[in-house]
């Protein structure tokens, strides 16, 4: 049985464990219908031209873990931003781990999707926001919607800000030979509210894992969201991340994506600007080796006038790794005075590495500033000579230059401890012995 059939037949088993009377279930049923019709995307589709899901579909993934698993904090401590105090929403093989988590209802809700989807006190929020910005057409998103049951639920009321950043962590234990996970997150930030979130998926063994995640983010007027995605998973793990962001006037949303690991990673990052004076920022650092594959597909839809978007993606590709960057910007006719910037710079450090980069601009307004640029190159020889002439050997000099190239994106990271972590990860990935503390 192929993966699609398995998923569809699993849906019936899934229904035994959820409240089918809940209106949310109507949404799920619509969604599974869409997925059944469309199936997994194939390379024939333009948006999937460079990323194939064929080999993943041949793997016999368990759709539900057979049992609840536990892990010790000391064994996974390094995956947390343990240098500082954080709220934590932790899942082990898709199941919430209260032992590793730290949630709150103190003025803000930082808790679970399973609670939000079932308890009456959250009904109002769910009715307004659940599945409202996520695509109802895109097959993988609808696949996630069909199985939506668990994930992070974060609600920040007007004028509030949680005392500390929130970490969302998904661990896979490897107790299943191959496991498919479908977390569903909902993040609502009301007027003048603010939140910082770090998301990470981490497999703890070499068993196959496929995560198909959907995150919906709503930022109301003057809301601020900083979202950091750390993608440094094991070589047998694949991630399809579908993130949908709906912004209202004067809100500021920044998403940083750090892609350093995993087998196949696809980021579908979609911004919808439903208001004026909105700022949307997407930044990414991708450092790959072996046969790793990362595909960044971004969309910014400028729907109203006077908004900005900034995209800055940097990639370093070694060995036989492949990268894709497809940045789509739509500026509607009424969205005058839009400022949209897009930059994608890549360095190939191996003859066998590949990058496919494509800006896609659809501009219907006439008074806008849109710029885009992509570069693919090797390291600057003059810069290399400069470092060598100071006594730094070629290998170290190369690494230091790549570090500097990637590091540039980190300026906008607002959690200092996280910035240092990422700095160190970049240095480690590039084999730079910095010889100094950051």
């Amino acid at each position: 049985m192929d993966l699609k059939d398995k998923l569809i037949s699993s849906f019936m088993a899934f229904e035994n464990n959820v409240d089918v009377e809940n209106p949310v279930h109507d949404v799920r049923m619509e969604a599974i219908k869409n997925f059944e019709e469309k199936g997994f995307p194939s390379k024939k589709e333009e948006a999937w031209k460079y990323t194939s899901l064929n080999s993943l579909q041949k793997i016999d993934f368990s759709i539900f873990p057979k049992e609840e698993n536990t892990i010790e904090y000391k064994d996974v401590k390094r995956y947390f931003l343990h240098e500082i105090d954080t709220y934590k929403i932790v899942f082990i093989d898709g199941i919430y781990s209260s032992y590793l988590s730290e949630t709150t209802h103190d003025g803000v809700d930082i808790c679970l999707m399973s609670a939000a989807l079932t308890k009456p006190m959250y009904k109002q929020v769910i009715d307004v926001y659940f599945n409202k910005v996520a695509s109802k057409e895109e097959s993988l998103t609808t696949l996630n919607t069909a199985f939506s049951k668990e994930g992070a639920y974060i609600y920040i009321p007007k004028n509030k800000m949680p005392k500390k950043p929130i970490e969302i962590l998904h661990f896979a234990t490897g107790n299943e030979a191959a496991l498919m996970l479908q977390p569903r997150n909902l993040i609502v930030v009301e007027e003048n509210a603010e939140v910082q979130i770090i998301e990470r998926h981490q497999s703890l063994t070499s068993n196959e894992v496929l995560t198909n995640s959907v995150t919906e983010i709503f930022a109301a007027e003057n809301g601020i969201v900083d979202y950091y995605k750390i993608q440094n998973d094991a070589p047998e793990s694949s991630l399809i991340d579908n993130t949908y962001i709906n912004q209202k006037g004067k809100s500021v949303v920044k998403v940083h994506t750090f892609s350093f690991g995993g087998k196949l990673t696809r980021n579908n990052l979609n911004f919808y600007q439903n208001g004026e004076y909105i700022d949307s920022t997407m930044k990414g650092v991708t450092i790959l080796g072996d046969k790793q594959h990362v595909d960044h597909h971004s969309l910014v839809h400028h729907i109203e006038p006077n908004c900005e978007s900034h995209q800055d993606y940097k990639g370093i590709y070694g060995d036989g790794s492949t990268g894709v960057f497809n940045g789509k910007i739509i500026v509607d006719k009424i969205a005058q005075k839009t400022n949209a910037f897009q930059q994608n710079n890549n360095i190939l450090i191996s003859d066998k590495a590949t990058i496919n980069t494509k800006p896609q601009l659809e501009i219907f307004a006439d008074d806008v500033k849109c710029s885009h640029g992509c570069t693919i190159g090797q390291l600057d020889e003059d810069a290399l000579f400069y470092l060598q002439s100071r006594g730094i050997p070629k290998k170290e000099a190369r690494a230091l230059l790549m570090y500097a190239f990637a590091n540039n994106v980190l300026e906008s990271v607002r959690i200092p401890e996280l910035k240092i972590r990422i700095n160190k990860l970049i240095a480690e990935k590039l084999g730079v012995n910095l010889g100094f503390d950051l």
Partner: protein
Amino acid sequence: MLKITDLHAQVEDKEILKGINLEVKAGEVHAIMGPNGSGKSTLASVIAGKEEFEVTEGSVALDGENLEDIAPEERAHKGIFLSFQYPVEIPGVSVTNFMKTAINESRKAKGLDDMPANEMLKMIREKSELLEIDRKFLSRSLNEGFSGGEKKRNEIFQMAMLEPKVAILDETDSGLDIDALRIVANGVNKLKSKDNAVIVITHYQRLLDYIVPDFVHVLYNGKIVKSGGKELAMELEEKGYDWLKQEAAV
């Protein structure tokens, strides 16, 4: 100390240096002047070991050792320093951390342990004071957003830290206002000793008012066409290069 013998060098089949002879002894300051495109910067890069340039004939030797096939970093370890005309920007690496890396790599090459942190800090403090460099400046990313003057001052700061035997200053005066020029020249003068040597590459005589050369050489069309004392620089300032071009053409 540095001996250049019949040096020919080319880039992509175009010969730029066409037989240069120059001997620089410890304690000396040499100025190399010449019009644009005469090969001044190429000479500096070839001495420092830039791979883009191919040495087709002749040699560069430091303390009797031929530097042929020696990588730029090893030349640096042996005591060659080049102050760049256009220093490269390295975001994310502070001036201090860059110097720590450079010094410790050099020590590693000599079989020494890393310089102890307190010693390093003391050295950084002393040398930055010498060049009137502000503390805050040292924590900024290397050359990123630096003004022309800051970049050059930073180059001489690096020279002070690395304590080379032979320092080549490539157009260090370009882009400097008179105050920055004075600071840079003062720094170089304080670093001068009977055990090291300085080669100043410049268009103009201006810098030589501050760093007084023992010898002045005029490079034209890949060759040294005239050598003399510091009065030659004055003569060039007054008369320009044309008379030398004519002399060379004869």
